[in-house]
């Protein structure tokens, strides 16, 4: 049965992946603090490492055309084990939604609206996400191109604004830190921004012209988004240099330093707008995917009625996930890469391997039946 009736174009698909990834460019402080002015190197390494990962996602989707991730799990692992694996995925999507909306609330509270209680900000945002999820996939991903263009324009303006503050000297010294730091940052970068694209496996069956050109669009979106993040990291390092280790929002400080034509300065409001817009997109895609996954798992005809209670659960989860920001950052640097690896790398690759083995066994049986 199809829960989701709308179809999105391949271009929309590619740009929503790019927009989804680009929204993580504003919260790079997780890993930039560890490798400071050399952060771009492990980042490039993680882009290269994640390309085969994306290829494996697309192969998985192609081998079961028209089925989203939950349906694939059931087909591969059987009914009971498939439901357990799907439940794990549902919990993962849920956690991602809550953590991201908590980040958004914390950011808006810290920088622009200092006295507003975080719960009000989160609830208002989530109501908007509920509204867009109500109308389905096409509405959720419709504005991806517009948001991406806006963010590229603001990125370009910011580079012009800090042009005289850029010092290429800030990239030296290179290879100064212990190897462990580089490995850690590569791991963090592959799981926290990049690995989250596994959620798009829930969306792939609804893309027009799938599965023919899926590889091109998935990889294209991934590369576009990741290169935009790389440009942001390069800009931050070249402006801030070794002071990048102090700030929890390095891009915010860069926007504050920029001056355009000696009159327009302190442009952090543009950064705030950009962050809110991009994070909103990311959270609404995550929320939609979570609802679709729950509906698919529980085999109900539509996710619309359960939107509001699940939104309330997201709010509760957002507040209880971590005690405070410091624990959140520390966990994100230390154990979250391993935890997310389970969901983003091990499970999909395991699914792929088991599906290959099954197909081979089926082919063998078919050949035996034919030869008989």
């Amino acid at each position, binding site marked *: 049965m199809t829960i989701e009736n709308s179809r999105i174009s391949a271009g929309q698909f590619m740009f929503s992946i790019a927009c989804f990834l680009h929204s993580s460019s504003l919260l790079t402080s997780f890993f930039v603090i560890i490798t400071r002015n050399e952060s771009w190197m492990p980042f490039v390494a993680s882009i290269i490492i994640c390309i085969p990962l994306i290829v494996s996602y697309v192969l998985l989707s192609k081998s079961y055309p028209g089925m989203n991730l939950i349906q694939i799990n059931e087909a591969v692992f059987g009914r009971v084990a498939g439901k357990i694996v799907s439940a794990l995925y549902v919990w993962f999507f849920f956690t991602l939604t809550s953590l991201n909306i908590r980040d958004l609330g914390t950011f808006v509270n810290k920088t622009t609206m200092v006295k507003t209680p975080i719960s009000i900000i989160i609830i208002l945002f989530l109501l908007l996400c509920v509204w867009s999820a109500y109308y389905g996939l096409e509405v959720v991903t419709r504005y991806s191109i517009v948001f991406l263009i806006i963010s590229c324009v603001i990125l370009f303006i910011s580079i012009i604004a800090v042009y005289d503050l850029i010092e290429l000297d800030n990239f030296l010294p290179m290879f100064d830190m212990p190897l462990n730091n580089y490995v850690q940052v590569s791991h963090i970068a592959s799981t926290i921004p990049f690995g989250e694209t596994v959620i798009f496996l829930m969306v792939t069956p609804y893309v027009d012209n799938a599965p023919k050109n899926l590889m091109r669009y998935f990889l294209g979106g991934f590369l576009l988004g990741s290169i935009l993040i790389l440009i942001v990291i390069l800009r931050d390092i070249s402006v801030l240099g070794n002071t990048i280790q102090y700030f929890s929002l390095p891009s915010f400080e860069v926007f504050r330093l920029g001056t355009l034509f000696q009159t327009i300065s302190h442009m952090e409001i543009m950064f705030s707008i950009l962050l809110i817009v991009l994070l909103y997109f990311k959270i609404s895609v995550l929320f939609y995917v979570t609802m679709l996954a729950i509906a698919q798992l529980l085999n109900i005809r539509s996710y619309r009625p*359960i939107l509001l209670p699940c939104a309330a*659960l997201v709010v509760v989860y957002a507040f209880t*996930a971590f005690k405070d920001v410091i624990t959140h950052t520390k966990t994100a640097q*230390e154990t979250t890469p391993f*935890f997310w690896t389970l969901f983003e790398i091990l499970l999909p690759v395991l699914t792929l391997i088991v599906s290959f083995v099954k197909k081979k066994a089926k082919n063998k049986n078919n050949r035996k039946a034919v030869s008989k």
Partner: protein
Amino acid sequence: MIVLIILAFIIMLAINLPSLIKSRDYKLIIIYGCFYTASFALSLLLAMNVKLPSILEMADSLFKTLKLSY
């Protein structure tokens, strides 16, 4: 605060219930009921400042004991 939560959940019921009952899909109603009571209970507990256990923090300590961390 608690009053606001109760009000919000009553509004939620008012929005969702008529169309649910009309559809006569009992499985959906039961699932809706489960989610509704779970979220209602957890929100009230959160508003009353009861410390809810955090799965992520438990996973964090699990991974640290397994030495799978940086």
